């Protein structure tokens, strides 16, 4: 079969044109596909629309007549979104580790920054599109509610109000994304998100009520607190500054550290 006196390179390798690099847009489309192509992923995405419908139905059924206004629908729909969107963001990152398909993903694209950036782009897109869908469902609910009551629909949320809510949801989603990058474990990151957004909120509130020193600095260090202004209409420039400073502390710095560790970590 094999002869010992074989030349070192008996076969001339195929001469192929150099391959062009993988464009970023392609990575984004692949990552988007990966959000939908499992049952769990599909239903998580579908749950955005489903919970928006349920929340709208709840307002139609149970809200008093004088609250059948658009802001009621928008507020009701926002509640499930604050839970679902960050989970989508968490899982888009952590499934690479928890499901171990990162072995393939990071072999096909060795520059892990590009994969994570593509996931970030998809996360941003999902945040905006899902909020637009949710708001459209809320608008239908508002029209239906006023039609039932026989009044003109009340549009008491301005474009600015809605934009700020989208921004708030996007920030929440990126907190989930950041926790996914830092923790790289699905259950751990989801628990961390709930601790951050629900437990921590209560604790800082308690701390602010009992400790003067914390009350003084809270708006500069408490991201949840700074974000709450986004749900109350327009922000003053000081409030924007609070939002900027706290997002650096809670989002930008941990994300940078998490990415640094992720690039150097071992994918097993």
């Amino acid at each position, binding site marked *: 079969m*094999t002869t010992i006196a074989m030349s070192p390179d008996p076969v001339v390798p195929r001469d192929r044109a150099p391959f062009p690099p993988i464009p970023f847009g*392609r*990575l984004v489309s692949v990552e988007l596909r990966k959000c939908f192509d499992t049952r769990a992923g599909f239903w998580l995405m579908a749950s955005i629309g489903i919970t928006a419908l349920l929340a709208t139905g709840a307002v139609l059924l149970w809200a008093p007549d004088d609250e059948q206004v658009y802001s009621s629908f928008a507020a009701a729909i926002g509640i499930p979104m604050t839970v679902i969107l960050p989970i989508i963001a968490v899982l888009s990152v952590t499934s690479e580790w928890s*499901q171990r*398909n990162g072995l*393939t993903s*990071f*072999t096909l694209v*060795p520059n892990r920054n590009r994969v994570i950036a593509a996931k970030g782009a998809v996360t941003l897109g999902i945040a905006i599109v899902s909020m637009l869908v949710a708001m459209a469902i809320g608008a239908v609910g508002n029209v239906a509610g006023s039609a039932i009551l026989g009044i003109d629909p009340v549009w008491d949320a301005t474009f600015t109000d809605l934009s700020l809510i989208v921004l708030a949801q996007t920030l929440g989603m990126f907190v989930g994304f950041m926790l996914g990058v830092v923790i790289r474990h699905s259950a751990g990151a989801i628990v961390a998100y709930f601790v951050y957004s629900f437990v921590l909120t209560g604790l800082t509130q308690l701390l602010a009520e009992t400790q003067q020193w914390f009350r003084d600095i809270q708006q500069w260090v408490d991201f949840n607190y700074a974000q709450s202004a986004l749900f109350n209409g327009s922000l003053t420039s000081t409030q924007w500054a609070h939002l900027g400073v706290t997002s650096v502390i809670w989002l930008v710095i941990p994300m940078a550290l998490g990415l640094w560790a992720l690039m150097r970590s*071992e994918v097993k």
Partner: protein
Amino acid sequence: MITVESLTKTYGGFRAVDDVTFTARPGRVTGFLGPNGAGKSTSMRVMVGLTPATSGHTTVCGRSFADLPNPGREVGVLLDASAQHAGRTGREILTIAQRTMGLPRTRVEEMLDLVSLTPSEADRRVRNYSLGMRQRLGIGTALIGDPDVLILDEPANGLDPAGIRWMRDLLRGYADQGATVLLSSHLLHEIEVIADDLVVIGNGRIVAQGTKAELLASAGTLVRTRDVPGLSAALTAAGVANTESSAMGGRDTLRVEAEAEVVGTIALDARIALLELRAAEGAGLEEMFLELTADNQREITAADQGEAA
């Protein structure tokens, strides 16, 4: 072409890969052979950029893996067939690879045909796959980009005998077309049948490498005697390298780097009676493998009594 130069990977004080250097050449199947935990998988993960090396470096197609513009088109990788999202279908996993690499859609069906996954199997979720089906899917994912280099970690795992035969023919075909094929295994017979070149690794270190023919030829002579220390001393005095060997199942055997006649003459001069004297080459690769790794295995057992080698 894959080159590995002075590759070392340590975890704390543990050297998982210790100064490993070898080259896998185009047109040949290189077998990466070693017992479990020898450092094969770690070395392969370093080659494809999943694990950072402590020192040394590796290249694939003349470049560092991370510098390949579209690695899937040049290097087919299968490290762990079970490392896939369990909720995706087989077809979907191939589709993701096809889209990432920018290949025509038809490649997915071609690969399903190649690895003999039926349409109904392809539409099943991977959590319901047997290990053999996962292995086939993994091989399909590695080959979808029509690469010139294949890096496969234990690809025969979980395949039935027909599947192993199929994979062997497939890899042989790739190598004959000029591809570089590196595959690891702890299954000696599998490697012995398919590989042209061998790299044998134990406890992170390379213990032997060369063409299969060279390694078998250099296996030396096995000699059995009741006076092992005496014969060993006589051989050493005559300038002939020899080591104790467990290849014949007892502690009364030496493996000698010399022809049987030389060994017999030395024994005669030293007036040492021999029980058995024969060329080691016929003993096959398994004996060589056990022998080459036996020293390392004993070290483990001595250092760490509790753990099975």
